[in-house]
């Protein structure tokens, strides 16, 4: 029996007019992996994650989540959760109401709202409107909303932006806990040190995948040098081609 990869990108390309955001990206992610996605600004990381989540249409190729097109999953809430932007919430709703909509949309028991408020430490602002929350608080609410149904795949785009140290540690525990449970997580970040703490595999990209392999070992400085060299070499190569 063939076991489907959790996520599969086949020759995915995305162009915005004359600008190429993604070029022939091939990626296969297995259950239980936590993939750290690295790349400079404009490398196409967010576009790649958008394609994975079915909200950006690839110009070429296709994305599959458990063999299905991401935008039309049969059990979307239990399969895929994403927090691509802390602003991506209904600001006019209260935190409790936001969680209630997630529970209704995913067909979960009503008691899940109270459980999530406690589990994700939202009790202090559960009745506040989302638009009045700080970036870090919104990030927590967004994560609570997507994790309420324990999705098999979690996609996070620069989740530590705007988070304080305590919140970063909290998020780290969540990601490590998911990996220990055999669930899949994909995290993009500019923070290599943080990615190394949670990732089981690293992908470096700059419109194309430049590196796809184990998490590099060495001191933080050495890994940063490795990354800079990697991206720098690819940039110089492009300049030569141009």
């Amino acid at each position, binding site marked *: 029996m063939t076991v489907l990869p959790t996520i599969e990108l086949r020759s995915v390309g995305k162009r915005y007019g004359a600008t190429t955001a993604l070029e022939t990206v091939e990626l296969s992610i297995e259950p239980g992996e936590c993939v750290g996605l690295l790349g400079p600004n404009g490398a196409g990381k967010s576009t790649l994650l*958008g394609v994975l*989540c*079915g*909200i*950006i*249409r690839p110009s070429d190729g296709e994305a599959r989540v458990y063999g299905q097109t*991401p*935008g*039309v*999953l*049969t059990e*979307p*809430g239990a399969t*895929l959760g*994403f927090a*691509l*932007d802390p*602003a*991506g*919430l*209904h*600001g*006019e*709703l209260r935190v409790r*109401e936001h969680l*209630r*909509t*997630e529970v*209704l*949309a*995913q067909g979960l028991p009503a008691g899940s709202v109270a459980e999530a408020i406690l589990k994700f430490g939202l009790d202090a602002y559960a009745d506040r409107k989302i638009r009045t929350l700080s970036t870090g608080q919104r990030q927590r609410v967004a994560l609570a*909303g*997507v994790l309420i149904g324990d999705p098999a795949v979690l996609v996070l785009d620069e989740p530590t932006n705007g988070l304080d140290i305590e919140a970063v540690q909290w998020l780290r525990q969540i990601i490590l806990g998911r990996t220990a449970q055999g669930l899949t997580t994909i995290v993009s970040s500019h923070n290599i040190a943080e990615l190394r703490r949670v990732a089981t595999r690293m992908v470096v990209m700059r419109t194309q995948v430049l590196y796809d392999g184990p998490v590099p070992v060495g001191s933080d400085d050495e890994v940063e040098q490795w990354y800079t060299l990697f991206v720098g070499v690819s940039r110089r190569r492009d300049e030569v081609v141009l």
Partner: protein
Amino acid sequence: MIRAEIYRIQRGWTFWSLLGVAIFLNVLAAYGTQSQMGHVEFATTALNRSATQQLIGLGFGASLCSMIFGAVIITRDFGNLSIGRDALLARGPVRLLGMRALASGAPMLSFGLAGAGSVLVVAALALPRTGASLDLGGHGWTILVGVVGSVVLAGYFGQLVAWQSRRSLWTVAGLVAWTLLIEPRLITLVSSVGRFLPGGATQGMLMDTSSITNILTPASAYIVYIGWLALLSVFAVHRLRSTDLR
């Protein structure tokens, strides 16, 4: 998912404040019109019916609020980028379009009933002060149903336009300009074509011959308006299938 959509649409200030504005403006318009009516000593059936129809026809004023509501419940999700998550949970943007249309049925109907009810109450209370009385005979009921129908359909018109435009400010400004300035002029200037526009069809539903006389029959008017909505639905589905959600 449909329950989540219904729950979310009715949260926040948008629905209730626009409903309040719709009722307030309708009452104001109906009272203003009634105050222009002269006093009659012996009201005939024809006069009662004419005065009643004049007042209840004003109920369609709620359609602008309904239209704005329909638009805003779509555009705000594009504005805060939550549309992607909504589309995922709905299992695709096209299904989301259908679910949101279903979920907004009750709020749209509320606008329609509030539009008709507000002018009906004013007509019942104010007409006796002129010596006339409320009489829904003749075309009265047709017009009243036309008010509810036109307000509901206007809400869906706003919603389907919003799937195209996606930006709150431009959509609302465009809808207001179209409804209050551009469309009425087109209908008056080229009535043979204008009567087939959504606003022209609305005049048919309300049997309103105040600006043009060659209005559509009520039945044709409903068909024409629903035809517009069908066409806009096709455009909306095409746009959702061919573009990113952010």
